[in-house]
């Protein structure tokens, strides 16, 4: 990617972050921390990689994305709005009684959502099912999913990891949003799942380690995953929870707390300043 392309992605990602925060602020509830950490991954997938069309969101040949860490719906709605699947003005309805934007993604209500998620550990299984269907039908679409690093404490994730390798689902790429934090604190203190890379390798996955906020690295990893035959790929993406908003970065407390008006204003001004610095439109 040249520097202009990267700049474009960075600007899109900043808008996704702004909309994620707008959603959580308007609702007075939701999950900003993990939404901000996964925003760059989503931006890369939806703007650079995935074969998807907002006007034909159910096309059977499309690539698919499952947000296994479904609580980060604000980021998913943000990218769907930024990419034209849903109107941007709907974002502020997030979690309200008269909106279709449920607290967690609902595939029956939201254009572009490929799977209903929210209960941690299940999304990766669903993604496996989609990847397996692609194999059975001889289709060339790819399936992406994003897991939280707390989420992988769920036993089902490892059932699914075994399954994906057993059925050689090389059309599946899973991102691990490796932000080091879950609700009750650091993942290594709550329940130490490290070394995560070695575990997935032991489950016969191809594992790639990257910085979740570096688009060149995301691109290289996604391409490497596409070249990897006979096994699924885990892209272990070291991220910063709350990325892009100074006072949220690295703070477990911002996992599931909405910013107040003042904090929201500051967050937006930081992101706007960033967009300005890239020469983008706010």
């Amino acid at each position, binding site marked *: 990617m040249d520097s202009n392309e990267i700049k474009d992605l960075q600007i899109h990602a900043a808008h996704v972050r702004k909309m994620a925060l707008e959603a959580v602020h308007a609702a007075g509830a939701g999950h900003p921390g993990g939404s901000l950490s996964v925003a760059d991954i989503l931006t890369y997938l939806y703007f650079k990689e995935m074969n998807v069309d907002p006007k034909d969101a159910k096309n059977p040949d499309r690539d698919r994305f499952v947000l296994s860490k479904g609580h980060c719906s604000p980021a998913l709605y943000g990218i769907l709005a930024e990419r034209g699947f849903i109107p941007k003005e709907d974002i502020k309805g997030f979690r309200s009684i008269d909106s279709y934007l449920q607290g967690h993604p609902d*595939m*029956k209500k939201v254009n572009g959502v490929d799977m209903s998620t929210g209960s941690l550990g299940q999304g990766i*299984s669903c993604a496996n099912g989609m990847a*397996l*269907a692609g194999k059975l039908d001889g289709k060339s679409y790819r399936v992406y999913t994003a897991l939280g690093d707390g989420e992988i404490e769920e036993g*089902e994730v490892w*059932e699914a990891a075994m*399954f994906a390798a057993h059925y050689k689902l090389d059309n599946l790429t899973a991102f691990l949003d490796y932000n080091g934090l879950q609700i009750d604190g650091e993942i290594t203190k709550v329940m130490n799942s490290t070394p995560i890379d070695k575990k997935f390798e032991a489950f016969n996955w191809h594992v790639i380690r990257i910085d979740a906020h570096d688009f060149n690295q995301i691109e290289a990893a996604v391409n490497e995953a596409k070249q990897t035959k006979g096994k699924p790929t885990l892209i272990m993406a070291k991220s910063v929870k709350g990325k892009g908003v100074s006072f949220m970065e690295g703070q477990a407390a911002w996992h599931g707390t909405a910013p107040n008006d003042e904090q929201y204003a500051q967050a937006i001004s930081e992101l706007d300043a960033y967009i300005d610095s890239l020469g983008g439109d706010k």
Partner: protein
Amino acid sequence: MNYKIGESVATRQAYGDALVEYGNDPRIVVMDADLSKSTKTDGFKVTYPDRFINTGIAEGNMMATAAGLSTCGKIVFASSFAMFAAGRAFEQIRNSIGYPHLNVKIGATHAGISVGEDGASHQCLEDIGIMRTIPGMVILNPADAVESNLAVKAAIDYDGPVYLRFGRLAVPTIFDENYKFEIGKGIQLKDGSDVTLIGTGLLVPACTEAAEILAGEGINARVINMATIKPIDKDIIIKAAKETGAIVTAEEHNVIGGLGSAVAEVLVENAPVPMKRVGTQDVFGRSGKPYPLLEMYGLDAKTIAAKAKEAIAMK
């Protein structure tokens, strides 16, 4: 399908046979969690190996994977014992299949106490209750091999989640090839005016037998086969209540949450009449041979007939 009236066939066997019979539809995928020899999906495995997916012993993962497959146009039969399908994987069924109303069929075998020797850990007496609370879930509990075959066919033709409940024990075939099965419709097997016996699964023949016992005592009992537990056939229940004035339900399930509860819910809101529920009385099962167990837990014609007289006495 080729079953003769009176022939003993387990409904799980009929499930497996039906998957083979209808399995040439390329949309059908059969999943199992290391129980294909018991759930009888092994026939499909041999006939259509490419569309048979073993998940290993991982029922929760199986259900959510089935959900993903179904979003891509597959009609998935996810099979395990009722205990592990409805029990272990409840939440995957609820959130990944039920909530998005996906086209997954749960083939739950070894339901009820007639599992026998394996004992209480494997005798699922709660599954109907658990599944009934999931919005939009269809629950089918066929009585014999013919009805099981037709239930599988109906599940294939229906777009949405279906829980199919089958037994381990060989049971008499009671229907012939002219039998019509429709989701949501109870079937009257015998008319009667004094009391109605509503049975499901292997207790349907017991209801018929109970009606004969009662006839010997001058009591004219109506018999209804309720293969669909959800959506329950309200009309046939209300009509029976109005015309016979007393109801007995019979099922191989806890009296809490199953057919008895479903029928009682219809009665109290529409046509309250005396009612008795035959089923396990909120207790776990135990090891033993199936028929002695059924008798020990009061899941037989004798108990149904006795309960019918109690219900009539309450009129």
